[in-house]
């Protein structure tokens, strides 16, 4: 019975996931393509159903009372104003529910912090208003800028499908590979967020924050900066392309040809960097 219910819940939740489908407004968090995104999704749904389970009886009693005990229908007020038994019950039971929620949350969080045995490391630097990616072991570095034309933002051209979610140089990673992310910033606090990968991390100047992803399904995954960072906060998206190991190797070789394998920022000649396409600025 438990198995059937959980499968039903899974089906229900799968039908609610929208993997950033264009024109269909998603109403739920995406199930995602990484073990962490899926664990987070399950935790989120568990919390949601628990809140429903608490809300329904609470509001049920409330609305029943509002209907049944109307003065206009002749209700006469009772005189009780305490009840030790019930008060203990509605203190203890919520506490137990909280413990029940805290346990899976603790476990998932531990998994999120476990960056051991990663196979690829990418350093992500937030700038105003673009991202820079450096594959430290492969000697690749490039900027990733919004590629939506300014005309579309200003309403002078029709908006294309991935309006504000497209970049000139996406991040390319191999599937089924544990990728360690080192996140920092060059100026103000930014935030690297890709919902379908279940990953978000603040990019803080002077600090390097560590996170990881392991993408199980090839595809293109889009995200946006998640911390107000100035005028063009809305215009520095993230695009991650998960490809097969073979395709990734080809990509690495191709990019290494373009950029010499220097390791310091100053000496990398970054021919992939387009001038940052900055939309409307302060007058």
């Amino acid at each position: 019975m438990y198995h059937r219910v959980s499968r039903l819940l899974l089906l229900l939740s799968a039908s609610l996931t929208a993997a950033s489908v264009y024109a269909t407004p998603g109403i739920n968090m995406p199930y995602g393509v990484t073990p962490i995104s899926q664990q987070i999704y399950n935790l989120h749904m568990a919390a949601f159903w628990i809140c429903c389970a608490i809300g329904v009886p609470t509001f049920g009693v409330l609305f029943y009372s509002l209907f049944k005990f109307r003065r206009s229908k002749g209700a006469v007020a009772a005189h009780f104003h305490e009840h030790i038994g019930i008060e203990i019950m509605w203190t203890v039971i919520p506490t137990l529910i909280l413990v029940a929620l805290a346990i899976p949350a603790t476990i998932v969080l531990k998994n999120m912090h476990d960056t051991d045995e990663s196979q690829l490391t990418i350093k992500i630097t937030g700038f105003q208003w673009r991202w820079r990616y450096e594959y430290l072991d492969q000697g690749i570095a490039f900027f990733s800028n919004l590629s939506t034309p300014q005309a579309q933002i200003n309403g002078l051209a029709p908006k294309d499908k991935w309006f504000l979610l497209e970049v000139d140089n996406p991040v390319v990673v191999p599937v089924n590979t544990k990728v360690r992310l080192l996140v920092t910033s060059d100026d103000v606090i930014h935030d690297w967020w890709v919902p379908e990968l279940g990953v978000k991390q603040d990019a803080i100047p002077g600090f390097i924050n560590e996170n990881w992803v392991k993408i199980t399904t090839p595809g293109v995954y889009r995200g946006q900066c998640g911390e107000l960072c100035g005028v063009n906060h809305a215009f520095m998206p993230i695009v991650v392309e998960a490809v097969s190991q073979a395709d990734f190797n080809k990509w690495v070789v191709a990019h290494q040809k373009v950029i010499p394998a220097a390791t310091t920022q100053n000496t990398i000649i970054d021919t992939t960097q387009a001038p940052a396409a900055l939309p409307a600025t302060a007058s």
Partner: protein
Amino acid sequence: MSDAISHALDAHHDDHHGPAKGFKRWLFTTNHKDIGTLYLTFSLVMLFVGGFMALLVRTELFEPGTAFLNPEQFNQMTTMHGLIMVFGVIMPAMAGLANWMVPLMIGAPDMALPRLNNWSFWLLPFAFSMLLSTMLMSGPAPDFGWTFYAPLSTTYGPKSTDFFIFSIHMMGVSSIMAALNIVVTIFNMRCPGMTWMKMPIFVWSWLVTAFLLLAVMPVLAGCVTMMLMDRHFGTSFFNAAGGGDPVLFQHVFWFFGHPEVYILILPGFGVISTVIPTFAHKKLFGYTSMVYATVMIAVLGFVVWMHHMFVTGAPYGAQLFFMYATMLVAVPTGIKVFNWVATIFRGSITFETPMLFALGFLVMFTLGGFSGLMLALVPSDYQYRDSYFVVAHFHYVLVSGSLFTILAAIYYWLPKWTGRMYSERLGQWHFWLSVIGMNMTFLPMHFLGLAGMPRRIPDYALQFTDFNQVCTIGAFIFGLGQLIFLYIVIKECFSKRAPDLRDQVWEGAIGLEWTLPSPPPYHTFAVIPHV
């Protein structure tokens, strides 16, 4: 000196010593009723200023693409909207309710420090003039969000940031002095017989709130002073290049910021605990546990601040502690909700406008509490944080939370203050437009956040369009409803009709204020009552 005291106690003089005439009355008043009115009027004006900014924001967000606000202007609007609503609407309104009602409820002739009371209020119009004037300066007004994180607000902040810092200082001093006044009044001026556990629950809620204010407003002052130092005096509190720490800013800010949100809601809880028993015609269920729950919420509120910072790169252990502590707050809050429901259960319920707003609060604040519980879970919070899910949560607890309690309080006490009953029909229109508008505006924001829409963006990807349009329409409906409220308030306050209400305006109401005439005399309790 003794002449003044016997003078004040001589009830015969009440009739001859009415308020001064003209604007001098309002400028120099030390009367708690007048000062309460000043706070409430200021708050109402600010509600429309902040509300207008919100409608500008929502209009820009009606469709993807830049409509009429460029991103720089948009960031200023969202920042100012937040600052005005938090510091200019909710806090002054709660202070206004405290000023009007605390002395009446405890049988005191006025606040303990009446002149300080006047200064507490009058700081505010000057503070907000300074803040709003930044919009007229060359260069942007504050545009870094109401949470003004460093280094966006320090190294990269516009010139107007310094004026912003000074206006925050002024608001802080105002709050600290007001809180001091309230604590001293409640400790020293309760009438004989009013022991701690006989005190009205609204007074309890303001007592706890006042302690919170005293504790954390100085922290905010320290925070903005460190900002000023970083900007102009060569320090590096928040500048990594100089050896400082941007995350320190967030710690200091949120150490203030989390208790601040309890400051914004606890007096409202006191209002609801007063309104519901009146209209359910039944005593508040669990008065003692309500008091303890209020204190517990306030105490817990000091140790949860890092839940605003879960994705900053905090260590696992710290995240765990703050997650558990944050989840724990649900227990006393749940106790309060259950107590309110238990008060209503088997009561004899009527549905005047104050009760409508209290019931709206009860349902919708609880919904906000549920999204808060979801936000407390760190792994899921990674996805929620800085998305519209957070915007939905805090608007549910601030608009259908704090604001609804203020509206309930005004409908509840305005007849006492003016001696005239407001139009019940208009009140109901206000209520329903507010509930429908509020839900239309903020319910879809949960979905937008879950679907991946970040907050504080003037422009968004196409799949977010439909819900954004619903939100914008809802916002205009909500705004329209508040115009009805404005009409009601102006009509009752300036009406030429003679006051015609008895002392006991509401049949089920309990408390010393209901022993006074409606409206009460300018000076009350010249003879100290006994309870």
